């Protein structure tokens, strides 16, 4: 049974905001899919099925001071961390104002310097060692900021994952390492990716607390993260969280999951859509009425339309800037002249 939303201890207003953000992210993803299919953008990674877990995760952080190193499926998490619809769309259209890379990289490598969000590289799991550096800086500065880093379960087979966890254990880093476990790495099912019963067990191997959580259950996920954040903030060290979620859609817009997942599996998946569950909870727990939800849908649609128009109209990066920013500008005193 999915726990009640109000059992999270979050207020009705906070839950309203979070639900609104989740719904916005889902509708925005639907728009992004449309834009890709009509050739207006070149690529999309959908996080449908992972939104509730991502939202519950971010809700446990202090986004004003904590750091986040997301992975490419984290659009909802990025939006809860402060990114706007327009930010996402600017990145997707490859526009110069896009916060992740100013149009210089692929859209789903979310990042924004002003939000303390670090954009990942294409090499999966490479953000994990980076997160240890970011977290170590908090230790050096006696800051209680916490670093959050995420990846998919398939990527935990990479050496970087293990190297990072080992150091985090040794250095007792104020970091939370998250596996968004959707049980597929592109086409490869999790029983071909790892033989461990649960990936949370890997924490023990590195002297780190490992936690398993149902990422389709908002409250359970939120409480698990709340506990992990409190531990990190008070010097008790890192936590590894294996968050079980589902991947409702293709790996990316370049993939076709019907090749490797059966019709029955895909139908069962759809029935588990966590947004449906949460919407039901929102109504039952009287967080929103149906009439309010209808208004919300209409308002979100409007916002998405406005943001899409604005982002599409924004300028592309100047091709003349192609050769810029390979090296720092040559200035006196910055070492280039000795």
């Amino acid at each position: 049974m999915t726990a009640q939303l109000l059992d999270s201890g979050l207020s009705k207003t906070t839950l309203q905001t979070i639900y609104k953000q989740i719904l916005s992210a889902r509708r925005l993803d639907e728009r992004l899919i449309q834009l890709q299919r009509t050739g207006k953008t070149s690529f999309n990674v959908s996080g449908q099925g992972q939104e509730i877990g991502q939202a519950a995760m971010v809700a446990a952080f202090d986004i004003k001071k904590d750091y986040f190193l997301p992975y490419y499926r984290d659009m909802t998490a990025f939006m809860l961390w402060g990114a706007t619809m327009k930010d996402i769309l600017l990145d997707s259209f490859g526009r110069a104002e896009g916060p992740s890379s100013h149009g210089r990289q692929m859209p789903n490598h979310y990042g924004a310097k002003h939000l303390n969000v670090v954009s990942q590289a294409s090499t999966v799991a490479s953000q994990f060692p980076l997160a240890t550096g970011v977290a170590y800086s908090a230790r050096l500065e006696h800051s209680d900021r916490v670093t959050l880093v995420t990846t998919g379960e398939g990527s935990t087979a990479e050496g970087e994952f293990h190297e990072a966890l080992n150091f985090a254990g040794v250095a007792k880093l104020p970091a939370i390492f998250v596996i968004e476990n959707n049980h597929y790495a592109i086409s490869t099912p999790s029983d071909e990716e790892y033989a461990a019963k649960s990936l949370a067990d890997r924490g023990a191997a590195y002297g780190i607390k490992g936690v398993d959580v149902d990422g389709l259950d908002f409250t359970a996920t939120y409480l698990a993260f709340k506990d992990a954040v409190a531990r990190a903030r008070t010097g008790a060290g890192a936590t590894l969280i294996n968050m079980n979620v589902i991947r409702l859609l293709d790996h990316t817009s370049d993939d076709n999951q019907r090749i490797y997942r059966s019709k029955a599996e895909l139908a069962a998946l759809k029935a588990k859509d966590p947004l449906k569950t949460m919407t039901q909870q929102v109504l039952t727990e009287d967080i929103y009425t149906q009439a309010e939800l209808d208004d919300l849908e209409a308002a979100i649609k409007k916002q998405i339309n406005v943001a899409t128009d604005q982002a599409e109209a924004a300028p592309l990066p100047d091709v003349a800037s192609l050769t810029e920013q390979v090296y720092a500008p040559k200035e006196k005193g910055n070492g280039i002249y000795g």
Partner: protein
Amino acid sequence: MAKKTMIQAITDALGQAIEQDDKVLIFGEDVGKNGGVFRATEGLQAKYGEDKVFDTPLAESGIGGLSIGLALEGYRPVPEIQFFGFVFETMDSIGGQMSRMRYKMDGTRQMPITIRAPFGGGVHTPEMHSDNFEGLIAQFPGIRVVVPSNPYDAKGLLLASIKSNDPVLFLEHMKLYRSFREEVPDEAYDLPLDKANVSREGKDITIVTYGAMVRESLKAADDLAKENIDAEVIDLRTISPLDLDTILTSVKKTGRLVVVQEAQRQGGVGNNVVSEVSQRAILSLEAPIGFVAAPDTPFPFGQAENDWLPNASDIEAEVKEIMSY
């Protein structure tokens, strides 16, 4: 014979390699049931079984080490690195181990491994998915780097690479995968490694190139012919080690050279060609050596890709400049 795309020619070769040699194993990320993210291994697992064609976990360093261990035990691994940009994860396997195994064991061990990897620009795959890092691997003696420029070559060179008793990095340019079809024999055949191919004969100037730039160079040569410039186009096929004989013979005949590569200008294979020709044939040259390459920046953003990548008109312009010297 049938007209095939380069990806079909590669799939053909992989299946025939398994049929030719019981020791051939094909593995990598998503190569099994899914048939590879570019469909290069489509249908192979169903046809040859999960012992011969299998998925690995998402770990390139693991794939590299697995290949080396299997090769030590007499297998002929043909691993796929899903995108060549992820080669860094397995750099120790390639540069630190397989390329020097024969040498350091004084010939008592060998590494008959063929690493296949898609690479190259022009298809709007961003960032590390498009990089042309072949020059990095060309720095390692002991491993061959083979880059086919068309479907026919891809099949024959891949079969030969798999047969060879040394490691080969076999780079498949993504833009060539499906952009055109060509007659490809149904039966298995080998093309020689370490041997460049004269793709077009000419007497006025030599263009040395490889990969996707071969087609651009041939296009340029056709246009130049209308202006009475008769260019010879050499497709290196194996970019490391270089086939100096073919290059030098041509340069001595034409007296002029333009080197063309898609990669950034710095480092890289083109510079090796320039250096060798300068040292061995400078007195045959009637003009400085021309060079067409991408700018020295990381692979750029989508909108700038067409400006960044060298193309036929850049090649034409460079050839004319060298001709008018």
